[in-house]
C-alpha cells in the first residue's frame, strides 16, 4: 500500500499452503491469522476466566459454575479474523494494489510464476520484488508427527476442543499456548528438551515457568518425543506419545487428546525459486541475509520480516522495515529500520515485557562490573483482595555504569506487561538514564510505578 501511494504499479501474491491437517486461512499473514491476533484473544479468554474467579472476592455473586465453550470462543475469534482478511482486501483494492491468491516463485530474472489453488499458472514481470514469505511451524520428523500432531497453524481454528494437551517445545509460542489452554481449564503438559525461552533473559524465563507450574501446567523437562501413535479416533481422539530422555536412556509414555508442536519455525524460502535468480540464503537455516537496507545480494530483490537473518521476528518490525524501504525507494527518504531496542511481550499467564538487553547478554557485552541491575518484586493492588500471589510479579532494569547509568535493559513480569513496556521503550530510545527514571514521579496505584 505504501508503494501504491507513490503511484507505483503494485501486485501482492499471497498463498497459504494448507497444513498437514488441512488448515488454511485468508490474507494477512501469520500474525493476523495464526499468530498474535488469535493468540492474544485466547489469552484474554483465559484471563477473563481468572477474573471471574477473582470477582467473587470483590463481591460479585453467582451460583452457577462457570464453564468454557471452545467452539463459541473460536467462532468469535475466526469471525474477527475474517473481518480483518476482508478489510485488507478492501484496502488493497481501494489503493489499486493488485492482489492474487496465488503461490509465487521466481522462474528467471525479474519474472515470477503465480499458481492459484486451481493450478492455473500466470507469469508476471516487475522492476523490483520484495520477499516477505514468513515462516511455518517445524515438525519433529518422528513417526506420527504430521498425521496426528497439530501446530499453532491449526490450533486457532480447531473445530473441536483440544482436551488434554501435550505441548512440545519451550518457545514463547509453546508457553503462550500452554498458558491459555490451561487458563481455559484444560489439562496441559509441556515437554521441554532443555531450557525455556531460548534467547530471552533466563532469570525471567524461569520465573515464567515457575508461575505456570504453580498454576496448573505440568512440565516434563529434558525429554523429546520419539513417536506419536493414535490409540483412538475422534475429535479429539486419544494419542499415545513415547518420549526419550536427553540425559540418559529413560523412556516414558503418555496419553493425550491433542499434541501441539511448537518447536520452532522454518522460513518459507526453499521453494520459491531463489536459486533461479541467484538470491543467497543461509543453507542451514533458510534465512536470507540482507544489508541494512533490506536488500539481498540481488539488487532488485529485497526481503523483510521473519525470513531475514539475524533480525527480530516481530510483526511491527516487518511492517516498519517494509514502509521505510518503500519510502527510501520511491520518496527519497534515507531512514533505515532501527532494529535496536525493540520492545516485545510474551503473553504467558504472567505476562512478560522486555526491551533491550537480557541480563546475560549485557554481562557478556559490557562485563559484569560495568552493569548494575535494579530489581523489585511487586504485588498488584488488584491481586490483593483475591489473595493472589504476592511475590511473583517482578521488574528489573539493567544499567550501563560507564554510560551515565543508561538503562540498557528493561524487564517486567506482571499483568498488562505489554502496555507497561511500550512507554518505557520510547524512553529507552531517548537514552533514559537511571537518574531520570528515579526522578520520574510514579502513577499510583499502578504496577508501572515500580
Amino acid at each position, binding site marked *: 500500500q505504501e508503494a501504491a501511494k507513490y503511484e507505483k504499479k503494485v501486485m501482492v501474491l499471497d498463498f497459504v499452503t494448507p497444513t498437514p491437517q488441512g488448515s488454511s486461512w485468508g490474507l494477512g499473514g501469520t500474525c493476523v491469522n495464526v499468530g498474535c491476533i488469535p493468540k492474544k484473544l485466547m489469552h484474554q479468554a483465559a484471563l477473563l476466566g481468572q477474573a471471574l474467579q477473582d470477582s467473587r472476592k470483590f463481591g460479585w455473586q453467582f451460583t452457577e459454575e462457570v464453564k468454557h465453550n471452545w467452539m463459541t470462543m473460536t467462532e468469535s475469534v475466526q*469471525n*474477527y479474523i*475474517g*473481518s480483518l*482478511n*476482508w478489510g485488507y*482486501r*478492501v484496502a488493497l*483494492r*481501494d489503493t489499486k494494489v493488485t492482489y492474487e491468491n496465488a503461490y509465487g516463485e521466481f522462474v528467471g530474472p525479474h519474472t515470477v510464476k503465480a499458481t492459484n489453488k486451481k493450478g492455473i499458472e500466470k507469469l508476471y514481470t516487475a522492476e523490483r520484488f520484495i520477499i516477505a514469505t514468513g515462516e511455518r511451524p517445524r515438525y519433529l520428523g518422528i513417526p506420527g508427527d504430521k498425521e496426528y500432531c497439530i501446530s499453532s497453524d491449526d490450533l486457532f481454528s480447531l473445530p473441536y476442543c483440544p482436551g488434554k494437551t501435550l505441548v512440545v517445545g519451550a518457545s514463547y509460542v509453546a508457553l503462550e499456548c500452554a498458558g491459555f489452554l490451561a487458563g481455559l481449564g484444560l489439562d496441559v503438559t509441556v515437554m521441554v528438551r532443555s531450557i525455556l525461552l531460548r534467547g530471552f533473559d533466563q532469570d525471567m524465563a524461569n520465573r515464567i515457568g515457575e508461575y505456570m507450574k504453580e498454576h496448573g501446567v505440568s512440565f516434563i523437562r529434558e525429554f523429546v518425543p520419539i513417536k506419536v501413535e493414535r490409540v483412538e479416533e475422534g475429535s479429539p481422539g486419544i494419542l499415545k506419545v513415547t518420549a526419550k530422555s536427553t540425559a540418559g536412556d529413560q523412556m516414558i509414555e503418555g496419553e493425550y487428546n491433542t499434541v501441539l508442536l511448537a518447536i520452532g519455525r522454518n522460513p518459507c524460502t526453499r521453494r520459491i525459486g531463489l536459486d533461479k535468480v541467484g538470491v543467497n540464503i543461509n543453507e542451514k537455516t533458510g534465512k536470507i541475509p540482507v544489508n541494512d537496507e533490506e536488500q539481498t545480494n540481488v539488487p532488485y530483490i529485497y526481503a523483510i520480516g521473519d525470513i531475514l537473518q539475524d533480525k527480530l521476528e516481530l510483526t511491527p518490525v516487518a511492517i516498519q522495515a517494509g514502509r521505510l524501504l518503500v519510502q527510501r525507494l520511491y520518496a527519497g527518504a534515507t531512514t533505515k529500520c532501527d532494529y535496536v531496542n525493540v520492545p516485545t511481550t510474551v503473553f504467558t499467564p504472567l505476562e512478560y515485557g522486555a526491551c533491550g538487553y537480557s541480563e546475560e547478554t549485557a554481562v557478556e557485552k559490557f562485563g559484569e562490573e560495568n552493569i548494575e541491575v535494579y530489581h523489585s518484586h511487586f504485588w498488584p493492588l488488584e491481586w490483593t483482595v483475591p489473595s493472589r500471589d504476592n511475590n511473583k510479579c517482578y521488574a528489573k532494569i539493567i544499567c550501563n555504569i560507564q554510560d551515565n547509568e543508561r538503562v540498557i535493559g528493561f524487564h517486567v513480569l506482571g499483568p498488562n506487561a505489554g502496555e507497561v513496556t511500550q512507554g518505557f521503550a520510547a524512553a529507552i530510545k531517548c537514552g533514559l538514564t537511571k537518574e531520570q527514571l528515579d526522578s520520574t514521579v510514579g502513577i499510583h496505584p499502578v504496577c508501572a510505578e515500580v
Partner: protein
Amino acid sequence: MGWEEVQVRGYSEFVRTAQSYHGRPIFALFCGDKDAEGKSWCPDCVTAEPVVRKELHNLPDDSVFIYCLVGERAYWKDPNNEFRKNLKLTAVPTLLKYGTPQKLVEEECFKAELVRMLFTED
C-alpha cells in the same frame, strides 16, 4: 439459474426472508426508507443504490439479493434498533454478504470495483 431480488422492509421481514433462502448465497443492501417521491432520507444511500444496481449482473448464480429498507431516520438513529443490535450494522448504506464478515459501508458502496469484489470473489 441466475440471481433474484427480493425487497423487504424492517428487521423481522429481513430475518424471515434471509432464513427462507438458507443455503443460497445471500447479499443484502440496507438503505433508509424512501418518501412518497421515492427519495431516501439517507443521501449516501441515494448515491450508492445505482452503483450497486449496476453491478448486480455480477452476482453468482443462484444467489439472492435482498433490498432492505431499514425504517425512518429516527428509528435508524436509535442506538438500540434491531439492525444495530442483532446484525451489527453501523451505518446505512451497508452492502453485505450474509453470514460472512464481508461488507461494504457508506462510501465504500460508491466504488463499483469494491461492490464487484464483494459479489464475485470468495
